[in-house]
Every structure is written in C-alpha cells, then in structure tokens.
C-alpha cells in the first residue's frame, strides 16, 4: 500500500517533464519552406503557370505535330478559332486553332517552337550568369585581397553597353561557331554566352554584400576556430545562407534573358529569320498589328506572363527561404 501511495507522486514528477499530448511529428526545413511558400498566392499561381508553359513547350510539339516552319500558302492569314465567336465572316478552321501567319505557318506550332527556343535561352543564360555571379561574389566577399580587383572587374562589365557588345560579338564569333556547331546551335551558344557574361554583375554584387556581413558572424568565427578550411566554410556555411538572394536574382535573370533574346530577335541579329522565337514572332507581326492583333498579342502575352510568373515565383521563394520571415 505504502508502496503504491509512494509511487504516485513519483509518476506525477516524471509526467511534468513529459508532453501532455502526443508529440508532433518532426518537420523538415523544406516542409517549412513549402508551407510558407503556399501562403504566397502569387508565387503559387506563378509557379503553376511556369510549370504549365514548360510542360506545354516540351510535350506540346509531340501532341500538336505540325511543323512550325511548314509553309501553307493556301491557308494563309487565318484567324484564331475564337474569332468566330464575334465575327462570323472571319476565316477560321480547326486545322489552325490559333490561325496562321501571312505565309500560312501555323501559329500554335510556331508559338510552341518559339517557346522552346526562348525558354532554353532564358534558362541556360540564367544558369550561366548565376554561376559566374555567385563565384565572383563569394570570392570577392570572402577573400579580402580579391575584393578590390574583382569588384572593379564587375564595374567594368557593368559599364559595358550590352546591345552594341552583342552586335560586335555576333559579327566576330558567328562564323566560327556556325562552322563548328551549325547555324542554330552556334547562334544559341553565342546568344546564351553573351547574355550570360553580360548579366552576372548584379548577382555578384548582392552575393558579395551578403557574404561580407555573414563572415563576421559568430558561427563563422566558430567554424574557423576549429580549423575549417575556407572552401568548406564557403560550401557548408556561407552558400546555404545566401541561397535566398541568389534565388531571387536567378528569377530576375531568367526574365531578363528572355527579354534580351526577344530584343535581339526584334533587331534581327539573333537566330536565322525562319527560326521562331517569341521575340521574333512578336516583331514580325508588328506591321500587321491592326488586322491581326492576335499575332502580336499571343507571343507578347506569353513573354509577359512567363516573366511575371518567374518574378512572383522568385518573390515567394525569397520569403519562404528566409527563416526570419518564415512563420509570419
């Protein structure tokens, strides 16, 4: 009996140290990120749209198998099928759901093919710019001796006017690249390369700033005091902490690359004239804007929406990746 009464408070004592409810299941960092990200409606819609566009341009040509370069003079100047809703006299046909241009090329097919080119240029140029920018930013921020030269180098690039530089680069490198990789791949490498090496500077500056602040923090001091090598400090402690600004500049970089490619196509110095990209579709359609507004609107809307959704996505990611904002 006494044993029993003596035991009861003992149980209570241990019980006070235990949770009254069953413990929550453990949460990973990425789960927190996702929860925060989900709260950002714009980011969610943007991400969804980007996914949709990417899938459409990757899988679309397998379903809509019309060749984007195929001329079909008899079916030229068709309007999109929806025009029939308000204009019963318009030339429409289910064969060309989004209409055809003045040489009879199918607009849906050219949009899909153009999207492939534009997105490929955008992603590749962005990744290139990102890796250059991050490398330079981290080196400049972490190694004091490199800071001056690298930042002056960045200033040098910042002061280069991009379009004239591009024109010169196209003149100089078009031939050798074309000879080695063929006209379209050669031009792709050239455009991606030039956009990449002229748009890394913002990333480098942002990353350098963050690194400068981070490397004075205690956890870096602690890491250094136990003899961690600079390479490991950068990889384990610094890079994970600057991931959020890098993500943001990545999304901005993707948008800029798509727009720069459009500008180049618009000026007629990009890909060959029969190679569709969104920018080129847009510029080709401008003279007939009044009669066939959809030829300007469709690629224009696609460019704008893609860029916008990428920006929203970046915004949401930034919020989600920053532990200080998370949860608010």
């Amino acid at each position: 009996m006494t044993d029993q009464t003596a035991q009861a408070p003992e149980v209570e004592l241990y019980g006070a140290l235990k949770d009254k409810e069953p413990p929550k299941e453990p949460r990973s960092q990425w789960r927190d990120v996702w929860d925060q990200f989900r709260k950002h409606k714009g980011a969610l819609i943007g991400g969804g749209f980007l996914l949709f566009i990417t899938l459409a341009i990757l899988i679309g040509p397998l379903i809509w198998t019309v060749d984007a370069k195929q001329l079909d003079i008899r079916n030229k100047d068709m309007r999109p099928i929806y025009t029939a809703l308000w204009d019963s006299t318009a030339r429409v046909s289910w064969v060309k759901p989004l209409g055809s241009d003045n040489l009879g090329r199918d607009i849906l097919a050219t949009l899909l093919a153009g999207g492939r080119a534009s997105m490929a240029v955008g992603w590749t140029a962005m990744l290139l710019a990102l890796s250059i920018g991050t490398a330079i930013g981290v080196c400049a921020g972490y190694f004091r001796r490199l800071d001056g030269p690298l930042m002056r180098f960045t200033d040098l690039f910042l002061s280069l006017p991009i379009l004239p530089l591009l024109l010169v680069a196209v003149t100089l490198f078009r031939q050798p690249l074309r000879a080695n990789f063929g006209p379209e791949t050669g031009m792709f490498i050239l455009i991606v390369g030039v956009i990449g090496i002229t748009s890394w500077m913002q990333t480098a500056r942002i990353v350098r700033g963050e690194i400068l602040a981070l490397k004075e923090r205690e956890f870096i001091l602690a890491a250094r005091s136990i003899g961690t090598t600079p390479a490991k400090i950068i990889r384990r402690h610094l890079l994970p902490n600057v991931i959020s600004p890098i993500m943001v500049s990545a999304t901005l970089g993707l948008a800029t690359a798509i727009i720069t490619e459009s500008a180049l196509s618009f000026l007629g110095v990009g890909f060959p004239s029969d190679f569709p990209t969104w920018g080129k579709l847009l510029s080709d359609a401008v003279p007939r804007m009044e009669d066939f507004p959809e030829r300007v609107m469709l690629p224009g809307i696609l460019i704008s929406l893609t860029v916008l959704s990428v920006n929203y996505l970046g915004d949401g990611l930034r919020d989600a990746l920053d532990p200080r904002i998370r949860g608010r």
Partner: protein
Amino acid sequence: MKLRTLLMGAVATSAVATVAVADGHAGERGRDGQLNIIYWQAPSTLNPFLSGGTKENEAASLVLESLARFNENGEMVPWLAESIPTVENGGVAEDLTSITWTLKEGVVWSDGSAFTADDLIFTHEYCTHPESGCASVSYFDGITSVEAEGERGVKITFDAPKPFPYTAFVGAEAPILQKAQFQECLGARAPECTDANFGPIGTGPFVVSEFRPNDVITYVANENYREEGKPAFASITFKGGGDAVAAARSVLETGEFDYAWNLQLAPDVLDRMEAAGKGTVVAAYGTSVERLHLNQTNPDPALGPDMRSVFMNGENAHPFLTDPKVGQALSMAIDRQLIVDVGYGAGGQPTCNVLPAPELYASTANDGCLVQDIEGANALLDEAGWVDSNGNGIRDKDGVELSVLYQTSTNAVRQDTQALIKDWWRQIGVETELRNVDASVFFGGDPGSPDTFQKFYADIEMYTNNFAGVDPEAYMANWLCSDIPTPATQWQGSNIQRFCTPEYDELVEKMSVTANLEERGELAKQMNDMIMQSYSIIPLVHRGNPSAHANSLGGVKMSDWDSELWNIADWYRIKN
C-alpha cells in the same frame, strides 16, 4: 560689274516670269520653312564616288549636281549645261568620239566661287585614279581626256566611238566635285578626307550644315543657288535609320515626316497605312530587279580573307554554283508570281531578265522561268548527277552537299521571300540557311565589315539593283571581269556574283562602239541572255519603287531613272 548686274537682273526677271506662271507657290527662297525626309537606310558618306549605295547618291544629290538629269519619264533634262549636246546640234562629233557640253552661265559653288570646266576635269581625274576605288568608274569608261574649250565649253574625248556619250557627269551617280575642296584627296587618300566627304561643296539647292554618319544630315538652303526663289524650303532634316515600316508610318499615319523613301512593304500593310489619309504612296517603274546573285567564287570561311569570295581567274570557283544546271534547277523551283502576290502586289511583276526595261532592251528568250516546275528541277538535278546518296534529304555529288547560305538585308518582305524560296528549294533537295543583315551594314560598303553585299561572304544573296539613266551600256558593263570586287579594289566593284567570261567582255566592248539603236538592243539582249543562261543571276521581280510623301508636299516627281530627289528645288508646301 555693270554687265554682271545686268545679267543678274535678266536672270531674276526670267525667274520671276517662270515662277509667276507656276501654280501659285512662288515666293522668296526658304519661305516654306522646314522639310523632313526619312531614309530608313542611313547614308554613311556624302561622296557618291566612295559608295555605290543609292542612299548615299540620293543624299548627295541635294548638294552635288551633274550636267544633265533624268526626269520622271526617263528623258534628259539639261541641268548645269545649257542644253543636251547631240549630233544634230553639233555637240556630239560626227564620228561619235567626243561630246562638248556648254556650262550654264552664272553657276557658282555654294561657297561663292565660280563653277568652271576645271572642276569637271578634276572630277574625271578623281574618279579614274587607279587607287581611288571609285564606285562610279564605269561611268567614265573609255574617256581619254576631258578638256576645257573656250570660256564655258567642256570637251570629253573617247578612245572609240561612243554612241551613248551621256554617262560621265550625268545622273546621280557621277556628279561634279569641286576641285578646290577635293584636290588633296586623290587616289588612296580619297577615303581619308573626312571633312570633304562628309560635307561636299556643291552647286545644288542645299548646303550641308551638319552630317552625322549613319544618322542625321541637316541641310540649309544654298544662298548662292542659281535660281531666284528656289528652293522653297529653308532647311531639311534628312533622317536615316530605322526600318521601312516605321518610315512609312511616320509619313502616312503620324505625319512627322514629309517624304519617305524605298518602302518595300507588303502591299496590304502599305494600303492600310495610306488609308489614314496623311500621305500618298507613289511608285515609279524603272529598271529595278529583285534578284538572286549566285556566288561564283568559294565563300568557305576556312579560306581566310585573301581567298574567301575572291575571284582568282576561275581557280577559286564555287563548289557547285558555277554549274549552270544547279542554278537552273534553283530558278525553276521558284514561283515568281507567288512572291509578287505575297510581297509586292501592284509594286512588282515577275521577270526572267536582269535587264527588264526599256522595252527595246528587254529580252524574251528566258520567259520560261515564269512557270514554276519543281518536277523539272528535280529531274534536271538527277540528270546532272546530284542525288541524295546518304539519305539525309539533301542532294550531293562527290561528297559536296547542295547546302547554301542565303543572305539578304533585314526587311519583312525579303524575309518572307526567303522563307518561300527556302521551302521550294527544300522540295528539290537543297538545304538553305537563311541570314539577314541590317540594311545599313549590308549596303554600307564598309571594307572592314564582313557583312556587306560586295564582300559576299555567302553562297547566295538577294537584293535589288537598277541603273540610273535610260541606256543600259554602263549597267551591262557591271559584269565585266575587271569589275569584280576584290581586296585589291577595297571591295569596290559591281560584278557582285563574280561572273567572268571573255565572250561577255567582248560583247560589252562591241556595244561601246555600236551606234545603231536596234543593234544596241540586240547586244543588250544577248548580254542579258548570257548572264541568265549562266544562272549566276536569278531574277525574281521587276519592282516599282514605292516612296511616300505627305499630302501637303507639292512638286514631287518621282524618277526611277535618277535620284528621287532630283527636282527637290521645285518642291513646296501646299497651303490650305
């Protein structure tokens, strides 16, 4: 002094008299203020001898003048000469070996100095200097001497009878330079005289006040212009650059500019803009032919600058375009009528000749090309041994693939044409890579740029060319072996496709000594046919040349035989 005042008075009265009968737009010089002209290809120099380009010739034609010009009907009008010399009035020698012009009285340069025979003598010397790379040298072919005769006479002597002696100092391509300004700029030093090349002193109605290469030129009225009350405009802004659509819109829809040149736009686009009611599209049919040039030399980039597209007496021949069968197949595959329908409308008609007009000179021997024949083209290539032996869809022979790089200037109509032609060539097993170059660069003539039409670093290129004036002799002399652009001539020269046969050179020679018009027509046809049957040129469209002017601009008389701005001294503002 007394005599001079008297003369001035006489000139003034006669001018007033003529102006008074004109339709109510007379008045003092500069009364109509500002005129805005847009040429969407910007001129890079104002010295027409250093550039073969139309834009440079036309921009310079406001300043530099010649002895005679061609009006809208292709007739010669005496300009700095008192009259057109002929055999009948004794100006041309009976044996056709010399012509004597009489300079108009009272003509002065815009700096006030007198215009004399010395300037003509100097211009001849300037352009025929062996190191100058003068673009208009063919206009001075066969001239042995230019000399002053009497007070205002200039005698031009030829080495042989010259049945059409109105080439040198006639039209926009061969105007007269001022000796005092250019005498230090002979030969290889010609391109170095920047001040003179950018601001030539002339006798024309306007004077250059500022020249920004490849951008804007501003002119003001020439105070020393020989005709009282002309020009009506006090200043001109001559804007270069942009593209044809923007230029057309600026005249036809927004009215910012008064005159826009060379609006090669799709017919539906131009019609709709004109409907805005601000301006009018005018077109002149001359001798313009949109054509393909097939490079007869090897443009392989691996060859390096000394050999690439350089003519070396047949040693550096193109791997397949020198075979007329290939050229013929390329030509047969093209549906010219469709190109006209898509890109030219009323501004063009299909043609099979590089010399489509005047009628006397137009051949009918090649008209078979008007019908597209893809099957025939395929059969022709099969027969010539070009077959697809490796199954990649492209015909080949001895390891050479029928794969061409096809370049032209950036222009929506040309890019549409390129797309159409590429599609037809695909159907006959020829692979085509398209390329377009900004028009200012393509036609810029800069020897340092790899993208000019003269350098021809491509297999096939497309553009329009024509000749000013009505006699095709100088034009047909374009394809002499000696006129091939090479590094030695600073890439100047008009034989763009590098065509060279001794027979053709002989015909050119023969034409230069034939006076009878009928015979000249026959010779021109023969030469045309010779080039056509070599298939080094594939003509596509005989083009009318559309320009647009504001409805408030009067006096425009478009001539395709000379500079479009040939009579700008007579332009005026219509007042409502």
